């Protein structure tokens, strides 16, 4: 579709979350297509690549970019709730998040340049459900819950269960992703964000890696991982996670780490990289993070 054709979509701006949910509910019953639009960094680009549709069949676009219920960032003592339509720029600039959750703010700083940070949102990342989404990888490492709202109320889905396949999620047609929530890592938790791509800004990752581990007396007591662009959905690296929580964390071998990483990913060749390179980078990133854990335990 060219820009003039995209402009033909019907568009509404719901004034509240309740109004949004009512509209979604009505349209879902009638099997009418609806799109929730926040920053447009995925949707507008993808519509340009989409074939022309009949003007009668265009989805209704609901602008959620300014809904107060979806924009707020709340950080309490041990808990964070980030609105699905809060921008990466707002996340990056949040003083408590940058102190307590550097894995998230580092991601927000590298997800794209400032023009993309100013528009892109975590809700968009989760709804689009691209396995390359940086935001989903960071949230996976934080063991976040996705909060979905509909006319019947809210429900929570752990992010580890949210993606059901390539670009597919548990969100129902009558639901909106309103926010994500996670327990704040304790002060001093080991956090790592690394994005490997062709440009520091504006690149979609060849591989991105997020990790959060809390240590207590040389043992991992909280561990979460997220890896982008190595599987049909954001990878949570369960085998690697088990190693981080194992009693013998200090003596986990490089061979065990490599085997665990390779078991947890199914990378492919595509326009951005190759399966072999992605696996190589994935293993290197996991080993690098575990080295930092072993150093911390040893000292």
């Amino acid at each position, binding site marked *: 579709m060219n820009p003039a054709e995209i402009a033909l979509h019907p568009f509404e*701006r719901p004034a509240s979350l309740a109004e949004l949910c009512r509209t979604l509910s009505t349209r879902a019953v009638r099997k009418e297509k609806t799109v929730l639009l926040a920053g447009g960094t995925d949707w507008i680009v993808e519509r340009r690549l989409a074939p022309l549709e009949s003007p009668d069949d265009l989805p209704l676009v609901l602008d959620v970019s300014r809904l107060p219920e979806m924009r707020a960032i709340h950080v309490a003592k041990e808990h964070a709730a980030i609105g699905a339509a809060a921008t990466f720029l707002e996340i990056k600039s949040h003083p408590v998040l940058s102190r307590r959750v550097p894995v998230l703010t580092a991601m927000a700083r590298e997800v*794209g340049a400032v023009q993309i940070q100013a528009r892109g949102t975590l809700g968009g990342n989760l709804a689009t459900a691209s396995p390359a989404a940086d935001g989903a990888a960071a949230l996976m490492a934080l063991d976040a819950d996705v909060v979905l709202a509909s006319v019947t109320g809210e429900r929570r889905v752990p992010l580890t269960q949210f993606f059901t396949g390539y670009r597919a999620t548990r969100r129902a047609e009558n639901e909106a992703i309103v926010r994500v929530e996670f327990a704040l890592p304790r002060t001093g938790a080991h956090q790592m964000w690394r994005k490997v791509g062709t440009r520091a800004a504006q690149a979609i990752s060849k591989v991105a890696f997020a990790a959060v581990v809390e240590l207590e007396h040389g043992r991992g007591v909280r561990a979460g991982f997220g890896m982008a662009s190595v599987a049909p959905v954001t990878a949570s690296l369960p085998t690697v996670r088990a190693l981080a929580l194992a009693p013998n964390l200090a003596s986990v071998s490089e061979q065990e780490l490599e085997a665990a990483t390779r078991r947890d990913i199914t990378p492919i060749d595509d326009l951005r990289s190759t399966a072999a390179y992605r696996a190589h980078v994935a293993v290197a990133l996991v080993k690098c993070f575990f080295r930092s854990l072993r150093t911390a335990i040893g000292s």
Partner: protein
Amino acid sequence: MKITFVLNGRSRTIDAPPLARLLDVLRGTLGLTGTKEGCGEGECGSCTVLLDGVPVNACLVAAGQCDGRTVLTVEGLENKDGLSDLQDAFVTEGGAQCGICTPGFLMAARALLAGNPQPGEGEIREGIAGNVCRCTGYQRIVESIRHAGKERASREPG
């Protein structure tokens, strides 16, 4: 849809499809052709404008989302005396060659300097990381922005 926003300091109301790109509304409906289209998919930064003071790619912003907001384009940089100090710096330091990317760089630089009046080289490069230039090799652009920041600081009283 009637869309009302403050454009370059002046309130404007236009009638446009809400999903028209802000880029097309600026260049077409409003005749402000200073904002350039490069890639049209949010990669190159040529169409950078400031939305409520923050740089965005006008090719990825729906016009309907600008209702009630403030938009600044390169046409809004000039003041009553002519070019702004930032634009002057691009002229004196050779920050523009073919010129297609220049409006986008100016807008990204304007936002950067508003939040960080004397950025270091790394900060400048991060601030313009979303803008692509195929002529200058970037060094002259970095120098232009640094020059503008220094000039402003030297004019500060005291």
